[in-house]
């Protein structure tokens, strides 16, 4: 029994935190091989080989793999699949695009956002925006699933797995990369940040959202947003925390001007400490908050930013 773990590579760099957390989820399942497949895989493969719990790194490098397109990556994974009992990946936009395609090509189901691996066939996963947790037994010959990384801690480094080259398969040439518009940011990544500051509808405008960003920067935090804030154009979609955005579990989550719809709570309720700042004292977010501050965010947030200066300078 061995597991193929699909790793994500961005501009030659391994998404190390996500891979390290997925490795910890896979620990009950035996030998793990990490597939590093991109246009520029050398450094990422080296990085993967150092993670604990990796017994082999498969490195594929080809221009067709450079932009994470589902069709060539799925074809590659299908070619490797016969050697594996499980195929897994961190639950990200990258893998959610690819693994269901792989599953259908292998005539098996896919499980998304697994939060617990009981044994080789049995997995927990949230449904209904995390309002219910299902325990599911799979009867498929190959189990394919994505892992909700916020439910696991990262494995450490210190490994030295061998790196093996593997060939890309012929690109089916069904889709073609045009461009990536990515926001380069000095801030920590939302899904691995120790502190997340999120703003919601109550923030009022895109301009006023700068106040949330200032507070986050002061705390060395990642910036998040509710679906409402994204819908209203206050914040970009890749900041969205919730059922249809990212799921985070930082040590400290500050929800500012967020009422706390179940879809938002689904994305942050596993945070260690939750602080909610809202003028409506009946806001549902207060039901999950460890510390509730009722009041006008437009005076509270600048005051908090100013007073935290001492803490973080």
């Amino acid at each position: 029994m061995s597991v193929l773990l699909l790793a994500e590579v961005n501009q030659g760099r391994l998404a190390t935190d996500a891979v390290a957390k997925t490795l910890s989820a896979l620990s009950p399942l035996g030998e793990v091989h990490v597939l590093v497949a991109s246009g520029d895989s050398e450094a990422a493969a080296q990085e993967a080989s150092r993670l604990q719990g990796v017994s082999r790194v498969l490195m594929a490098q080809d221009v067709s793999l450079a932009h994470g397109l589902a069709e060539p990556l799925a074809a590659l994974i299908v070619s490797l699949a016969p050697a594996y009992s499980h195929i897994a990946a961190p639950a990200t936009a990258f893998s959610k695009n690819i693994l269901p395609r792989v599953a259908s090509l292998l005539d098996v189901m896919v499980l998304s956002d697994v939060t617990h691996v009981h044994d080789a066939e049995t997995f927990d996963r949230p449904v209904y925006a995390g309002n219910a947790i299902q325990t599911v037994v799979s009867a498929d010959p190959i189990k394919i699933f994505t892992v909700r990384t916020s439910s696991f801690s990262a494995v450490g480094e210190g490994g030295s797995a061998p790196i093996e080259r593997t060939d890309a398969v012929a690109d089916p040439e069904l889709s073609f990369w045009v461009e990536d518009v990515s926001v380069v940011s000095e801030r920590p990544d939302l899904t691995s940040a120790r502190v997340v500051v999120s703003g919601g509808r109550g923030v009022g405008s895109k301009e006023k959202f700068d106040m949330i960003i200032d507070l986050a920067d002061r705390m060395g935090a990642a910036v998040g947003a509710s679906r409402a804030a994204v819908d209203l154009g206050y914040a970009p979609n890749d900041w969205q925390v919730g059922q249809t955005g990212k799921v985070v579990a930082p040590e400290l989550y500050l929800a500012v001007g967020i009422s706390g719809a179940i879809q938002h709570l689904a994305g942050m309720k596993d945070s260690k400490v939750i602080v909610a700042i809202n003028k409506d004292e009946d806001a549902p977010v207060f039901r999950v908050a460890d510390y509730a501050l009722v009041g006008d965010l437009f005076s509270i947030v600048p005051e908090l930013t100013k007073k935290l200066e001492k803490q973080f300078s």
Partner: protein
Amino acid sequence: MKVIVPVKRVVDYNVKVRVRADGSGVELTNVKMSMNPFDEIAVEEAVRLKEKGIVSEIVAVSIGVKQAQDVLRTALAMGADRAILVDATSDVNQDIEPLAVAKILARLVEQEQPDLVIAGKQAIDNDLNATGQMLAGLLGWGQATFASEIKIADGSAIVTREVDGGLQTVRVSLPAVITADLRLNEPRYVSLPNIMKAKKKPLEERTVAELDIDTTPRLKVVRTIEPPQRSAGVRVSSVDELIEKLKNEAGVI
């Protein structure tokens, strides 16, 4: 150009679901059901492409219980031309798995020969985010998931995708499967006259047996429980008190 839009009947977005105490699932009796919100976005996009003269026919498809007629009527009222209901179960508690749904859709694609399938990216009940990608795999078609913008030109779709860390634009040759993300559009409200008109549009019923698809589940749900609940914490009265608590009580700053 012909488009198929699959639509799913799910527990309404605003309903707080209740988990049955015996662990057998979530309570679906007397719960408001609606069209999956991402599927509404998919229907809206197809209708807009029709209004631009790019699409000539929209076929809405729902797979599941007979009651899914409701969501098909909504799709027709939004502007779909006809509907196909695939009767796959009589048990409202049985969720037809994405693999089976994709196989049924692939069979209908063979028969209907559309140029494009636009689906919602995810159903808000099982949260699997899989059907579109699986359908593209089964058909050997290209896919563009999590779309926030779609342009059709010269036998291709140019699709902007919502990805982690920003946006990606891909060109996918038609026929293809596109899945709709949140910001693709804002679905229209259906007007009463359109609801009346929708009643006269064709709604064809098919069965899984006649389509010859095996829908036997691959996954067995052995238990459904409520997640651990967080309890409400304490009220703080000032920023100073908040900082003090975070520092000395919670130890997180």
